[in-house]
């Protein structure tokens, strides 16, 4: 079955989107996918830095529907296994100590900010340098 927590597939990234349980959320990370496929995903609305929530799936857990900033996208396991995600709703300690912007975003989200602005903030975190320049 595609949906599992043991990383059987060699192509599966550690902490990939496919590992999100139904109802679980995370922040979209890097894509280990061909440029063109990644571009297609981003045009559909799945952009690194945004909050993603795993929703229902087809029979057998594949493909699964993901909610990301107002858009619902169905992905098969072969794609979602290659999309990195920083899970939310985990213990602080279980997050890596390496403090990347993404994880900061994740922590902020974890701290219980209003849902509607989560995605925006996730974004702002990633684009922080740009945003500062823009407003300066």
């Amino acid at each position, binding site marked *: 079955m595609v949906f599992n927590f043991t990383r059987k597939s060699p192509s599966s990234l550690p902490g990939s989107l496919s590992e999100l349980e139904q109802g679980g959320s995370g922040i979209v990370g890097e894509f280990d996918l061909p440029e063109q496929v990644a571009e297609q995903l981003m045009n559909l609305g799945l952009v690194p830095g945004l909050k993603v929530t795993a929703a229902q*799936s087809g029979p*057998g857990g*594949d493909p699964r529907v993901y909610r990301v900033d107002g858009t619902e996208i169905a992905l*098969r396991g072969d794609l979602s296994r290659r999309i990195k995600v920083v899970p939310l709703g985990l213990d602080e300690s279980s997050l890596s100590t390496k403090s990347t912007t993404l994880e900061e975003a994740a922590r902020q989200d974890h701290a219980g900010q209003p849902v509607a602005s989560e995605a925006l903030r996730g974004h702002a975190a990633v684009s922080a340098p740009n945003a500062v320049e*823009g407003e300066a």
Partner: protein
Amino acid sequence: MSITSVSSCHSGPTQTLDQASGIRTVAVVGPPNSGKTTLFNRLTGLRQKVGNFPGVTVEHHTGMLRDQSGNDVALVDLPGVYSLTPKSEDEKVTIDVLNGDMAGMPRPDSVVLVVDSTNLNRHLVLTARVIALGLPTLVVLNMADELRKQGGHVDVLALAQQLGTPVALASAATGEGMGAITRFLSAEAATPSPLDLPVVQDTRQCREWAVRVGLNAGYRRPATPLWTKRLDAVFLHRIWGPAIFAVVVVAVFQAIFLIGQPLSNLFQSLLDITGTHLGALLPNGWLESLVINGMWKGVGSVLVFLPQILLLFLVLGVLEDSGYLARAAVIADRTMASVGLNGKCFIPLLSAYGCAVPAIMATRTIENRRDRIATIMIAPFMTCSARLPVYTMLIAAFIPDRKLLGVFFGARAAMMLTLYALGFLMAVITARVLKSSILKTKDAPFMMEMPPYRWPTMTSLALRLVDRCKAFLVRAGTVILAVSIVLWALTNFPIHHGQPPAIQDSLVAKAGHLIEPAIRPLGFDWKVGVGLVSSMAAREVIIATLGTLHGVDPESQAMDLQQALRHEMTPAAAVALLVFFAFAMQCMSTMAVVRRETNSWKWPALQFAWMTGLAYVSAFVVYHVLRI
């Protein structure tokens, strides 16, 4: 006022009235599921026509609109796009038109970009790219009613200032904001001022820009409506999902018989009465024979299926517009994957139950070329609405009306479902064979947007039906009428002593007898042979043909077509004929569209040989097994 005028109206030449037609052209652009077509329909109503761009197969609707000063404006509804990188044929068409590179179509004077206001951040990415084209652009934030209802907000004026182009908040469903759009269409639109647009090529940076613009415009995205989540929880439920899926599919077909059949019968009696009155107006003789026995009976025998066909398209339309079809694709994906296809192929295949021609056009949403060709190759196996008349008539004539499972399921419905299943099964086998041989692919990525659930609007459904109705009537009035007349002529010549020949001596009998040896092993006589040949024009023509042939045959003239068929065919041959129709590729329109879409004769030729060969062998087997 929801439109801000842009002051920096620099050089941008608005080519108003300098085109040959003198009519301004406005392109309607937008992502799929943004309500673009609903808006287009609301603006143009019935004043629209379908066209094809030269050289490509992408259909587009053009609608006329009168602006405030009484001038005509041509609105062109371009295919929905997610981005402006030419990946699919749809996107290429839209980009070519917007750049003025499309032959036979002038560069539009301005653009109406329709985006979903409930999902602005994502759509601002496309907006940036469209504005960067440099055409005067109105950004329509559609679904304003939903935005408000679900607690969203956007400051239109602030957004317009940031984008440097007019922005209108509208709702195509309720009609809100249409005035602003008409005002834009009426005015000499200004080119957007050169904006500090983001790096439009880089989607990620573009999205970051979009978020900032959204923030500055006070954009608050509405929460995902609770009922979309709730409906998903039901329609994509582990157990209920597939169960509902099965119920929906069965209900679609059952509806066609339970509701469609009585409607068709009613229509039939209307046609009969009209025919009788028409006959009374004409002098007896060859003219009456031509009009009544040739044209009216021929065309009428096909026309009577219009209610059923419209019902099918209505049901498919409701499923699609409501958003359920996308969920069905998710449910079906696993199954499709087992034959090497994906859930996206399911939608064209389901619409192939209506007609293979639009279905094959709909395969353009499948990015992978090999998957797309495989879908094209199997689409005609799906039981299209043109087979429906043939099935309905033969089943009504030969299958007893016995109940199998109470009122819900009778022997006739079972036979019908069997035929549908046969076609589907053969499609699966064909896909399997193709995908493991000449069309083998590494797994193509499957990603698909799930549109929010929405109530289908009456206007969209009605216009869709009008579209189908027109196409069907055009076909009945041209191809089927022509075939009916030719057949009538062939049955009425050569003339002996000023009298039409006995049917056995007519030209059509000679032609029929010529091919009879080939179809005799299937249990078909020469009349069916003529029917098979004429049905190459379109499957349902066989009924018109048989109607004409029996109509002029004195032996069966008094009977209706069903009685006449029972009189001349064995049940075994009838079932063989049904199976033949389930498999055979008897549709010139389909072959033409396959040729266009695959851009090669190889695929339609292969398809024809495979399907017709299969039909022949299967009919042969069925006939001989049933005769024992």
